[in-house]
């Protein structure tokens, strides 16, 4: 693995950990919609996640397609590695 690659995996891993927190809080909030503390935590994680994703996308292209985020030139969505190819 080259250096650029391992930096990409590192950034990706941080995004993954924040997004997992969001997923778990999301499921919890589905069945506890009036838990204010969990909701505040969810909103905080969502904000952090957005910052991390925008920083990642500046270097490595869109994390999601179909209009989720703008892309630099050239279209970077098709750039490798795809998720199953990333070495952690």
């Amino acid at each position, binding site marked *: 693995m080259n250096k650029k690659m391992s930096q990409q995996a590192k950034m*990706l*891993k941080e*995004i*993954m950990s924040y*997004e*997992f927190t969001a*997923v*778990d809080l*999301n*499921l*919890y909030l*589905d*069945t*506890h*919609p009036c838990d204010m503390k969990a909701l505040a935590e969810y909103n905080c994680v969502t904000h952090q996640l957005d910052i991390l994703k925008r920083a990642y996308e500046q270097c490595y292209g*869109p*994390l*999601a*397609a*179909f209009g*989720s985020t703008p892309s630099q030139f050239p279209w970077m*969505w098709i750039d490798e590695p*795809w*998720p*199953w190819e*990333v*070495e*952690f």
Partner: protein
Amino acid sequence: MWIYEKKLEYPVRVSCPNPRLAKIVLEQYGGADGEAGAANRYLTQRYMMPTGMAKGVLTDIGTEELAHWEIIATLFYKLIKDASIDQIKKAGLEDYYVNHGKDVYLQSAGGVPFTAAYFATKGDPVANLVEDMAAEQKARATYEHILTLSDDPCVNETIKFLREREVVHFQRFGEVLDNVYTFMNTKKCF
């Protein structure tokens, strides 16, 4: 609709090529209690659910199961991609390799192709949700069997994450079942 995110839900690492273990994890790719069955079960059952909570949880857990399905495929891919033909033969995967090469295929570890017969829609939210709770327990048990059979600590790390998610999903479905019971009892009063 769904939007794909170009990332895994949890990192996948393997120590070395291991076709024997690749075949074992296929049970959770296309087996009876695997992730494809789970995702399709929940995403198919959600339409006639009586409460917003039930529709939401089935949508969200169904979507998370798709991410788990991708994790299992990634495990298979990483365990088989650098395996030599000798290793594939020694692991007894000639019957798999002759048909699929190193591609992942939607089947159980025993070679049975995936089928919709693995899950139900009963036209009854309680019956559906109780099936979902059982499915989570069966998936947890399968992950524990995989841990018993696995000889790769890196793979175990990912499998343990997936096993833990089954426990959380079981808990959430139990809460949804309560919510649906409450809704049905309230309706009967009027």
